């Protein structure tokens, strides 16, 4: 049977982010040169000065949209991309910088900059899918490099990438871990968090803090029982949801539920 004919063009684009997700590609030390044989790396500014013009067969997009200019730029990227894959929490949910969405961004700018007027920024940090159509999403802060390779191999072979979207718990059990919540009383977001990391935190005896964002099904209200039983306060729960995927709707709702309860409690006390 004929092998693949044309080497597809791969491009990597960056928006507001820490670079960690695209670095995952360079962290595939064993596969990097093989990948370079399988695709034409058309644009990957972190690694190469070369820029080939679009259109691109596969575009990996890292980072969230936080400036008016970026909101424009992502449309251009989409127009140039056959398959667009967002990589990481910033691109898929707005990332940690989306903490600004629920506060006064001017206030934030004042904390960091003496002359905030120089800073041109939007009041929100939003996921790519809020701006353009996204074909596949890779979750995680950062993404898992094995998943990235699996997605690239799938796309190169015309297969639907298999990106398990169930809970972290399933992967935890596949590894044979002992549940940190049931056996150690450690609060853990694993039951509502999207798989992909291989249940890293529980493997290291800590509770999952949700860096892969919400799983396909999230009963955060149900989970509250277990978190409280494990000694988490409502403030702790609210803060934990408010980190790397703070703007992902299920996590956002979970924070708000906690905050409402805290306010009610304070009201009763006051």
């Amino acid at each position, binding site marked *: 049977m004929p092998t693949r004919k044309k080497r597809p063009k791969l491009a990597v684009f960056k928006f507001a982010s820490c670079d960690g997700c695209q670095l995952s590609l360079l962290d595939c030390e064993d596969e990097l040169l093989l*990948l370079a044989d399988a695709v034409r790396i058309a644009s990957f500014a972190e690694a190469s000065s070369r820029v080939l013009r679009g259109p691109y067969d596969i575009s990996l997009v890292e980072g969230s949209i936080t400036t008016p200019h970026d909101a424009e730029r992502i449309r251009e990227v989409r127009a140039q991309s056959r398959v667009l894959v967002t990589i990481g929490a910033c691109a898929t949910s707005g990332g940690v910088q989306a903490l600004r969405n629920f506060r006064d961004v001017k206030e934030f700018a004042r904390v960091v900059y003496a002359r905030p007027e120089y800073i041109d920024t939007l009041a929100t940090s939003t996921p790519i899918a809020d701006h353009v159509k996204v074909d596949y999403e890779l979750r995680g802060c950062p993404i898992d490099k094995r998943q990235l390779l699996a997605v690239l191999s799938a796309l190169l*072979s015309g297969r639907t990438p298999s990106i398990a*979207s169930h809970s972290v718990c*399933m992967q935890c059990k596949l590894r044979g871990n*002992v*549940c940190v919540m049931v056996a150690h009383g450690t609060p*853990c977001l694993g039951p509502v968090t999207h798989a992909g990391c291989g249940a890293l935190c529980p493997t290291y005896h800590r509770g999952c803090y949700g860096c892969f964002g919400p799983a396909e099904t999230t009963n955060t209200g149900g989970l509250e029982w277990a978190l409280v039983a494990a000694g988490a306060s409502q403030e702790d729960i609210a803060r934990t949801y408010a980190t790397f995927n703070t703007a992902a709707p299920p996590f956002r709702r979970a924070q708000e539920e906690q905050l409402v309860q805290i306010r009610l409690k304070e009201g009763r006390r006051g």
Partner: protein
Amino acid sequence: MPVVLAAADLDALVQALAGRGYRVLGPVARDGAIVIDDVRRAADLPIGLEDVQGPGRYRLERREHGAFFAFTVGPHSWKQTFHVPVERLFQIRRHKEGFSVIPDEAPRQRIALLGARACEIHAIAIQDRILIHGEHPDPRYAARRSDVFVVAVNCMRAGGTCFCASMGTGPRAERGFDLALTELVEPGDHRFLVEIGSDDGAAVAAELPVRPANPEEIGAAASVSERTAAAMGRRLDTSGLKERLQKNLEHPRWDDVATRCLACGNCTMVCPTCFCTEFEDTTDLAGETAERTKRWESCFTLGFSHVHGGSVRSSIKARYRQWLTHKLAGWHDQFGTSGCVGCGRCITWCPVGIDITEEAAAVGLPEKDG
């Protein structure tokens, strides 16, 4: 005739098995729980540890009695030994004429299970029925099961979530073992009553420093099991249960449990009989080699029931209902047995402590009482 082995000589059993080329797997304390791992000497066993189990809660506590097997079942089950969590089935290489399939063989090894409980022996038998005795046996599972020596242990305590007595699967191992131990712990006299269940078992026992059991010891062992049976942490009324569940697919209790269930899948992962699997096809970057791996899957995932256009069971309610009705009802239609052996794992390891016995009982009741 049962024989008696001094507790101090338990290591002789481990060594006898190892000497016959068995990889001895048994209970080991790790990360705050009793898990299944390699046992190289009797001292590797969780001596003096007891587990305290409840819905969504598990803790180990140390006791003075120095018993080897005073705990019940932990998060692991023998499922992981035979129906392994992840395995590759085959590789496929592309070539000019098409492609060739290169199957992965299951490693043949002799495995000795040290400390399998009655419910677990039943669970293995249930998986055998599905994976070996069905129309299409799973060759890798069958290979792993082909040379197994079972040392059963009769539970001396019932766990807080156990209900094997209701399911008729324990606490005493009646068959399916080569040797069965009942641990007798008395001040100054710590020993095992050893029952022999097979010729292999007899041959191994013959290598051990044992003596014939006396009637008191046989009686003491029987009363250990009786006491355990009487102390079950949970119970489930199984009479007519299958019909009650299958008639009540629209019972309001399903909506109730759906508010609590996280659809996390832990219950299915820890259940010793759950057998569902997912297949994943992958390719190398060059697209020259493909492979297929199989891993445990759960009816709690959306993907489980995915068809073109969406998932058949998109609500948590439908997924929990699928699980419970399959386990306790559909299983009878499919395999002529319940899918539940009453081990209680799904209750303990459910992060929110959903209790299969409570849910089944509630669904089985008329609506207004449920």
